[in-house]
């Protein structure tokens, strides 16, 4: 079987980053996670062909990479929303009302847990690990930033601000 070469489909900077990570570790295989992060940063998710690219770059088989990418919960194999909302529902947050927060956001955004809004702006996730901000419970993490001590109104406010800060031409 002739495998299509997909390396062109990636930004050269991403590819360079993958190669840099490959040479950083004592064993190239260690660069699988950083390489997947680099691709997800560019494409927002990991299409099957990108796993083959990683495999080729690191001298692995595509199956090896899929075994890894599917194990970790933060890699997507489908296109998520432009922003990812993670609502922590573990013990500390649960004790301080994260269920109500999630229910409110589900209603407000019109999506179920795990769904993406119709405008593609947000993917809502309520099944995440403890996000390590129990001191500010309840909290949510939007992309890489934490928003703590939330109540439904404050969460709405935060998300409205994020939505409005997007370039207008997306509307």
């Amino acid at each position: 079987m002739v495998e299509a070469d997909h390396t062109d489909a990636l930004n050269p900077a991403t590819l360079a980053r993958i190669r840099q990570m490959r040479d950083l570790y004592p064993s190239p295989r260690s660069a699988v996670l950083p390489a997947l992060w680099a691709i997800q940063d560019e494409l927002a998710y990991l299409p099957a062909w990108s796993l083959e690219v990683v495999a080729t770059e690191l001298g692995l088989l595509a199956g090896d990479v899929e075994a890894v990418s599917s194990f970790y919960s933060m890699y997507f194999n489908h296109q998520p929303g432009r922003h990812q909302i993670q609502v922590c529902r573990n013990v500390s947050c649960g004790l301080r009302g994260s269920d109500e927060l999630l229910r409110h956001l589900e209603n407000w955004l019109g999506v179920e847990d795990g769904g993406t809004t119709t405008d593609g702006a947000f993917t809502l996730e309520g099944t995440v690990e403890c996000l390590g901000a129990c001191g500010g419970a309840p909290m949510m993490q939007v992309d890489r930033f934490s928003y703590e001590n939330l109540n439904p109104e404050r969460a709405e406010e935060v998300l409205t601000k994020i939505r409005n800060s997007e370039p207008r031409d997306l509307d």
Partner: protein
Amino acid sequence: MADASTVAELVNISVDGRPVEVPPGTLVWDACEKAGIFVPVYCAHKKLEPVAVCRMCLVEVEGLPKLQPACATRVAPGMVVRTQTEQVRKFRDGNLEFLLLNHPLDCPVCDRGGECDLQDFTQRYGPGRARSSITEKVHFDKAVKLSDKIMLDQERCILCWRCVRYYEEITGEREIVLQERGVHTVVDSFERQPLQSQFQGNLPEICPVGALTHRQYRFRARPWDLRRTASVCSHCSYGCNIFVDAREEQIARYASNDNPEVDDSWLCDQGRYGFPELNRPERVINPEARVGGLRQAVSYQDAVARAAGALLRVRGDHGGTSVGVLGSPRMTNEEAFVLQWLAREVIATPHVDHRYEPLEGISPEQFRLGIAELEGCDAVVVIGDRPERLSPVLTLRLYKVANKLGRQILRVPETFSAAQVVKQLPAAGRIGIVAAQADRAAAMGLRAKAGSAGREAAVLTITEAVNSRGCQDLGLLPNVGPGYRSLEHSGLFGRQLLEAAVAGQIKALLVVGDGADFEAEGLFHEALAKVDVAVVVTAWQGVASRAATVLLPGRTIAEKAGTVTNTEGRVQRVRTAVEPKFTFPSDLRILGDLAAGLGSDLGVQALAAPVFELLAAAVPAYRGCQAGLRAHWEPGS
């Protein structure tokens, strides 16, 4: 040899109160087995490294607070193991409950039903009934065609990882991997691309449940329908040990029968799935003879008498040398030996061969190295890709030597410079050289070169068909006699013989065996048409059966009993796995009766065992080897 020092090194442990002595480093599971106590296990497999994921084998070890996995714990002196305590019993029950929680109720349609470890252990150790109110199971894909050979059912999978580890440790191909995690974990191929391996057939065999099944065997039979016979795979000359499972005198499947010296429990797909060849319906089922120009069915006695009469007539008219005798590398040793005797001693012709192309310059030295001895080599040179194409299972042995034992494997093209190769070898130590028989001269040349460079080298030659080696050892060749004895007068090689027949010098042909080596050759056709007498003993309809003046129904290798010799010289038994549709005598008996018709007596009954004694007397290397030992050829013989 067990001298005092090695005995002192053994570790004494007790399993359920039974004392047992094992070498240090032995796994507790093996020690239990040695003590005669069975510990249930799913993930552990003799040929794979322990992972201890199924937890089924947890046992009590005195002094340790937690139950320990017998499959991964090594023995320590004075260890006290208990496998039958209440704690262990309760956990086995609970663990099976866990396994069954998400296991579908597929047993009636599952091919594994009746020979499934999950069924068996549930019967033996498991909960008698379900107690849970949780009836919703996690669902996965079913009946996934992983390739044209393998079917995957992810719901039935208990995630023992055997398939994944097999691909990682045994073949190195890593085609099946674990995906997802937690209760959603599955085994699958990348993007469900079809498996490419030529060793897929081993997957269903190591799968403890019905997650991976053979598509060929799909819904063919239940284990209680099958009759199992231990035999040898007839695909190539490697001699993998198999079980032939037959239903109603049709082969239903091959299963591996571990022989660590030969196959190490793995079969190739060509061999495992190749048996439909033997189930073909195009069989010769009646003795026939040309009576007055017209072929018709005759009685067996009549056919033998006609054959003997015709051969006698030709010998009388033109002399013994006007008769040609052709065998087949798919004959048993007994048949090959009797056939060459029949040719040389009874018909008195030197023209006897078992193959089309000439074979010259052979000696036992070319077969000195054993298959398992490859593991003792410091480096192995493989000449060309022919050895692995002929005997695919060799690839797995080489992978083991390279990967598990960390030895050097050097694959060189068929044309190579021996001096260059020797330079790449380790400075000292044992060198194995693997070559197809066609490359034997190059292999022997390399051996000499390596020998003179201070390495100890030995050659393993890979022959072509299941009993090519036996036919050579027993002298079913025109240029050497039994045991590679040199002859006063060499006969004609197969092809020359046929040419002589076309030229009219050979007046009669005796063709015994499946004839597969000749059937494709136009020369064979011409020769058969030309000769006055063609006595054919064959199982299959074809060129030979159609042209025969006297035709006798032969048996396939699955219908025979006897021995065959694999490429390393191991003499192994083939047993009658299925009965033919007719009741005529076996090929060996036919040869004996033919000899009697020609006025000679074999001296013993035409049965495998007595004939083996006869051939062992003629070829001393074979003495005492019929139960799976390598024939012992004296150096330089």
